[in-house]
């Protein structure tokens, strides 16, 4: 087992990894930028190391500095968390070469899944259903050809992208040229690669994802999450088990998935879109997911600890994989520092930051009162996970905990989250990725 794990990350997830390390009897070393020196993760870890500066590229994304720091403090493993370096295959490769364990899959797997067109075509060849999509688009004519095959609307996506960033929906034929010209430079500046591909745009699909746990020879699925409540292609609310009657479709695709990725060697997530009765592969995230907590609560499992143990060479049959079937319902709401009315991020000092503990509610907070929310990092303040013996109970507990959670100094999306959780469509499980927009349009009328 590892002795000392370096954590080049911040906020909610750095704190979560520190907790897993402590449980396994491993020392944790948290790297922090100059802006994060006073945060809970830094205070709770065994050792804190400063990364001078505040911009992500100088600190949490500075792969050279992070690796040197790991060597200097004699860490034998690095847990990248999510975001920042978590899906950088070149970083993972450098870490492997340095003889340090990268807590995640091997760099080959990260590389294989990072180019979305290749991931789609390799999955398709293995028999996994994939929604209609194009290859790499060289020019506008390629887009016209694709539209000729599948019709409008379509969505243009950066081939090297992810996380819903840099996507453009094309509704009309005469928008093709302008959207192509807009999308290319954004792909280039966001992902250092201007290649694009297109998919048939599904306006009301559901986002369904499979939690994968694998050790290189054995691969299993540990539950399925419903993550359709999104704004600007970013998730807001996630839950497990999946509401509605999808059991047959899920059961059909599961063995195909585990067979297609049977030599995967860490935890990961296969994201699918569900539309018109069909599930189709979207992408695979080769890392810990923000919403891992709902799976942990429903299946009585510690996914972060599992990830650490697998990276230390332990095999699935010697590990505690929790219960295969969900034992309860779990619903997670992401509390963001943002002005939901104007859809803008909000920065400032957290004059009040007071999560309230409740029975059946797990709260993961990245800050304490007095911390600053700055424009340099993502706006996630906390995750609120309500659990229960029924879906209704889990929803109600999440809503109550949100209402009681006091934040002053920045705007938050708490009210928006409470409105969604209290909406008829959500409670009835009539969920799709366009739901938030529908609720918004209705309330502003």
């Amino acid at each position, binding site marked *: 087992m590892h002795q000392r794990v370096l954590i080049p990350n911040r906020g909610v997830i750095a704190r979560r990894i520190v907790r897993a390390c402590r449980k396994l009897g491993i020392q944790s070393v948290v790297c922090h930028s100059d802006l994060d020196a006073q945060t809970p993760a830094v205070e709770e870890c065994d050792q804190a190391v400063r990364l001078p500066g505040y911009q992500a590229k100088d600190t949490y994304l500075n792969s050279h500095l992070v690796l040197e720091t790991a060597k200097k403090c004699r860490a034998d493993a690095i847990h990248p968390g999510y*975001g920042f370096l978590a899906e950088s295959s070149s970083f993972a490769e450098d870490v492997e070469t340095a003889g340090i364990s990268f807590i995640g899959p091997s760099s080959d797997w990260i590389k294989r899944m990072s180019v979305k067109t290749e991931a789609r075509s390799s999955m398709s060849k293995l028999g996994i259903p994939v929604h209609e999509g194009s290859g790499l688009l060289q020019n506008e004519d390629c887009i016209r050809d694709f539209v000729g095959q599948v019709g409008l609307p379509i969505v243009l996506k950066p081939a090297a992208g992810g996380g819903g*960033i*840099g996507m453009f929906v094309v509704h009309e034929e005469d928008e093709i040229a302008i959207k192509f010209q807009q999308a290319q*430079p*954004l792909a280039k*500046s966001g992902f250092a690669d201007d290649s694009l591909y297109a998919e048939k745009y599904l306006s009301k699909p559901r986002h369904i994802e499979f939690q994968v746990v694998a050790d290189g020879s054995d691969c299993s699925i540990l539950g399925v999450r419903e993550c359709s409540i999104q704004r*600007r292609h970013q998730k807001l609310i996630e839950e497990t088990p999946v509401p509605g009657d999808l059991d047959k479709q899920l059961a059909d695709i599961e063995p195909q998935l585990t067979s297609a990725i049977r030599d995967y060697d860490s935890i990961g997530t296969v994201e699918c879109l569900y539309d018109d009765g069909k599930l189709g592969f979207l992408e695979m995230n080769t890392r810990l997911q923000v919403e891992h907590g709902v799976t942990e609560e429903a299946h009585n499992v510690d996914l972060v600890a599992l990830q650490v143990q697998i990276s230390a060479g332990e095999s699935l049959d010697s590990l505690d994989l929790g219960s295969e079937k969900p034992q309860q319902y779990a619903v997670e709401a992401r509390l963001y*520092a*943002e002005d939901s009315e*104007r859809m*803008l*991020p909000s*920065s400032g000092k957290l004059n009040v930051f007071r999560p309230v503990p409740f029975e059946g509610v797990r709260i993961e907070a990245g800050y304490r009162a007095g911390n600053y929310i700055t*424009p*340099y*990092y*993502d*706006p996630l303040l906390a995750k609120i996970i309500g659990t229960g013996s029924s879906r209704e109970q889990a929803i109600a507990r999440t809503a109550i905990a949100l209402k009681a959670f006091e934040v002053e100094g920045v705007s938050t999306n708490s009210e928006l989250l409470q409105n969604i959780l209290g909406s008829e469509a959500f409670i009835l499980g009539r969920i799709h990725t366009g739901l938030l927009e529908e609720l918004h349009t209705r309330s502003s009328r």
Partner: protein
Amino acid sequence: MASVNVESEVTGKVWKIEASIGDNVDEGDVLMILESMKMEIPVESPVSGTVTELRVRKDDSVDEDQVIVVIEQ
């Protein structure tokens, strides 16, 4: 001719400048894209007119309410 100051709605960084000085823009055209907390925030022209000043450059930091573009109507 009236000049209209376009202000940043957030504290953040200039990610990409779409407009050039001298461009004729319509109301709603994207002038530049700011980045804050990993989100892309488009700055749209509030009026139709000509871009006469770009007060920031790519990668500059901007404050909330800071004037970043001037448009002559």
